[in-house]
């Protein structure tokens, strides 16, 4: 699988630094699960974090620090452990981070209708940003909208097309405030996406603006 649309450097760096809302972390982790390029780029930002840690001025630990730590490791020690692959549920559509948040595979997603055949499921994260799975029937358009903030859309199944390109499994669209777009699901199959927003969407047409509260998007 070749991913063509990647995470931006600022998102990778902020994920490495641990500075993103949970919902954004979730979409970053999910994209990286599908994209070795971004996994490698993240690796390099983690190395940079290590370099920053190494250049920190030392701050003296308290007097009993070492003793308390030694006491903790002696009482908790579970000996030498073998590295082994964790046995986890595998899902063909949902990478591991999403399986965690859904609490299972695709069949466990609790979809709610959002009208026009579109379904959505909001995932449980902190409130500073929202992560939702979207199910868009083949050939269906999501109404033309802009954003008050950022919108990240990661394709998990099928594909969609909008003014900025063609996105298939693993591709992520990073849409800023100034992008107005009308994503249309590819006609060949239904499309499932993970979408993250840090502010409500702004729809351009009147009708979508009226239904927006019902869609919850």
């Amino acid at each position, binding site marked *: 699988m070749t991913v063509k649309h990647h995470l*931006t*450097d*600022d*998102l*990778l*760096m*902020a994920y*490495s*630094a*641990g*500075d993103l*809302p*949970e919902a954004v972390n979730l979409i970053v*982790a999910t994209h*990286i*699960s599908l994209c*070795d*390029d971004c*996994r*490698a*780029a*993240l*690796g*390099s930002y*983690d*190395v*940079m*974090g*290590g*370099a*920053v*840690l*190494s*250049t*920190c*001025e*030392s*701050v003296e*630990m308290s007097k009993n*620090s*070492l003793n*308390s*730590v*030694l006491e*903790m*490791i002696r009482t*908790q*020690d*579970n000996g*030498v*452990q073998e*590295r082994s692959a*964790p046995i986890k549920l595998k899902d063909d559509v949902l*990478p*591991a*981070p999403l399986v*965690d*948040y859904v609490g299972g595979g695709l069949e466990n997603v609790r979809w709610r209708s959002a009208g026009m055949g579109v379904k959505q499921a909001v995932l449980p*994260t*902190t409130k500073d940003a929202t992560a939702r799975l979207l199910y868009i029937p083949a050939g269906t358009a999501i109404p033309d909208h802009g954003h008050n903030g950022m919108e990240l859309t990661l394709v998990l199944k099928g594909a969609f097309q909008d003014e900025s390109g063609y996105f298939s499994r693993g591709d992520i669209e990073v849409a800023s405030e100034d992008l107005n777009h009308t994503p249309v699901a590819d006609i060949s199959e239904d499309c499932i996406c993970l979408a993250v927003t840090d502010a409500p969407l702004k729809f351009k047409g009147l009708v979508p603006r009226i239904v927006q509260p019902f869609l919850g998007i």
Partner: protein
Amino acid sequence: MRDPSKGDVDGTESLTTGMTNDVVPWVDDLVAVRDTRDEAAFIRVFGHFGPRVKSFLMRTGMDAALAEECAQEVLVTVWNKAHLYDASRASPSTWIFTIARNKKIDVLRKQRRPEPEDLPWGPEAEPDQADVIGLQQESEQLGRALRDLPEKQRELIEKAYFGDLSHSEIADQTGLPLGTIKSRIRLALERLRHSMK
């Protein structure tokens, strides 16, 4: 600011004077903790990284008491998770940074951190020594490049990791040699994927 020509009192001489060993310091100690639960090696790791982790956590916004408590927990995690340490995938400072970073998210942001799907482990039990040395050396070089940056630019990068600055301002203008490390990790991933087939 620190004089890079002098080592620290706690014995980081070789970290600042360049690559005198085949492998960066602390790798052997972490491996000893991992493979033989070597307490003396752990105490050395504690002596070097404890004060830096505490400092790092204070810079991210913790007061001294909380940073002390969290730094202790980070070092306990180093001991408990040593079996996950792989010297071909991370230098000790990189690995300990990720543990400290996760602690920060847990304590300051009070949220879970979704992690990417684990890669399947390759069939070879021991990583290629050349890969280990290559990655460790490049990580060291990056550290030196960071220390050699003009102060203002270095502070910018540090602030990004402490959470004081928007990342978009700096991500693509760090001027640091991230490309070599990215290529190395990318190659390692390709080999891993290949060996899985």
